[in-house]
């Protein structure tokens, strides 16, 4: 098994939702996943994050069968962001710190946290209540939170669906520049043609089986 591939997927079947015979995902690339609703895009992403165990077939992560890797250790390196942004009760700072804690890392100091928020085009302060943020701000907070972590792969499920196009482009541009610096890979589900055209280095289209 060659290891310049990030994920190797063979004969994958999940719950009659997803049916992928042969799919390779390359390392260090930005891969955009598009497709009709109900095609199983989120399901595919969850199987890569080990949130779903496939009914049959094999997934290899850097050449190792996914079922031989500990789920929690895998998710710490292959982080996923679901469609609904995860906001914990408390301030923006609490939310950023929660990311570090759940991921098993030591939290960064306030300067780093502040910078992370501002990089996401947010004008909020750390002590502000995260519960009152708008949908778009919650998505950006969730993105800022995972960007602070040391992941190898980022799996994003429609991460900027609640943002206007200009902000969406700026936020993703920053996000991708940062993960390139970390030599991490990005897999992103998107419905935006513009995002797909501008950022995708590899493209996957899922159709309903």
């Amino acid at each position: 098994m060659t290891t310049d591939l990030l994920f190797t997927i063979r004969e994958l079947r999940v719950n009659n939702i997803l049916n992928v015979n042969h799919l390779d995902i390359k390392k260090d690339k930005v891969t955009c996943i598009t497709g009709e609703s109900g095609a199983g895009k989120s399901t595919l992403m969850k199987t890569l994050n080990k949130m779903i165990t496939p009914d049959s077939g094999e997934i290899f992560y850097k050449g190792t069968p996914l079922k031989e890797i500990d789920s929690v250790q895998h998710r710490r390196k292959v982080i996923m962001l679901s469609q609904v942004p995860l906001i914990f009760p408390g301030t923006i700072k609490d939310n950023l710190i929660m990311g570090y804690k759940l991921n098993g890392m030591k939290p960064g100091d306030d300067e780093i946290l502040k910078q992370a928020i501002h990089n996401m085009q947010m004008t909020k302060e750390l002590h502000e209540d995260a519960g009152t943020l708008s949908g778009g701000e919650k998505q950006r907070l969730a993105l800022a939170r995972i960007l602070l972590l040391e992941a190898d792969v980022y799996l994003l499920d429609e991460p900027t669906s609640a943002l206007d196009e200009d902000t969406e482009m700026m936020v993703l541009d920053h996000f991708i520049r940062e993960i390139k610096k970390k030599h991490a890979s990005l897999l992103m589900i998107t419905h935006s043609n513009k995002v797909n055209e501008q950022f995708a280095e590899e493209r996957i289209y899922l159709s309903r089986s």
Partner: protein
Amino acid sequence: MENSSIIDIELWRLISAYLFVLLLIFIFKVRGIARQKMLVMAAFRMTLQLVIAGYVLTYLFELSNPYLTLGVIFIMEGFAIYTIYKQAGTRLSVSLKKTIAISMITGTVFCLIFFNFVVIHFEPWYDPRYFIPIAGMIIGNSMTGITLSVKVLLNSFTSQRDMIEGALMLGAEPKAAVKPYVNHAFDSAVMPTINNMLGMGIIFLPGMMTGQILSGVSPLLAIEYQIVILLGILGSVGLSVIIFILLAYKNFFNQDAQFSPEGKS
């Protein structure tokens, strides 16, 4: 009875107390609330159950046999566990039922042993006059505590599924992903006991104390018992509920650390 100050209620006076039931039936009828049947049933069952309990307890006290005492405790535990299963609804998986039984028995038995042997210390150790009422209070309160925590835990696992899965996706250990909801379930289960302690003696005199005072025991002795009983209940509720939730959350994760609010079957 060594203490003769208590008045024995004559039969006709006792029956006169049932006028309160008639009063309620009248109110229900006038207001058009369809509860008469249930009230009659409740009054009937209360009477029957207490009469039986009175004779059974008299019999047990006279025999004062260790096996009989332990048998009664065993039946109480069984009934309490069965009540939790019924109260919690139909969604309990087999492994969760096991967890409930284990935590109920370990929590209450530990507290009961400590309470009987250290705090009150009566002889012989199986004296049903002490053992049975104390066990009743400890088991009954733990039962209520576990029922509450089961309900709160199942509710928040269903409603907060996205939050729990979102935390797992970031690489959270299952324990960390459910921690806020597990803590909430513990808190909800012990709050009634703590509230009860806050109002104690001012807003209400608990049943046991009322009973003791009515039967001629000095209020000072009655409060001694009340204090230790309340502390015993607190400990027993806390212990059985913490054992329950620490074991229970694991039922909701599979070997791949994937979460399911219905639990493993």
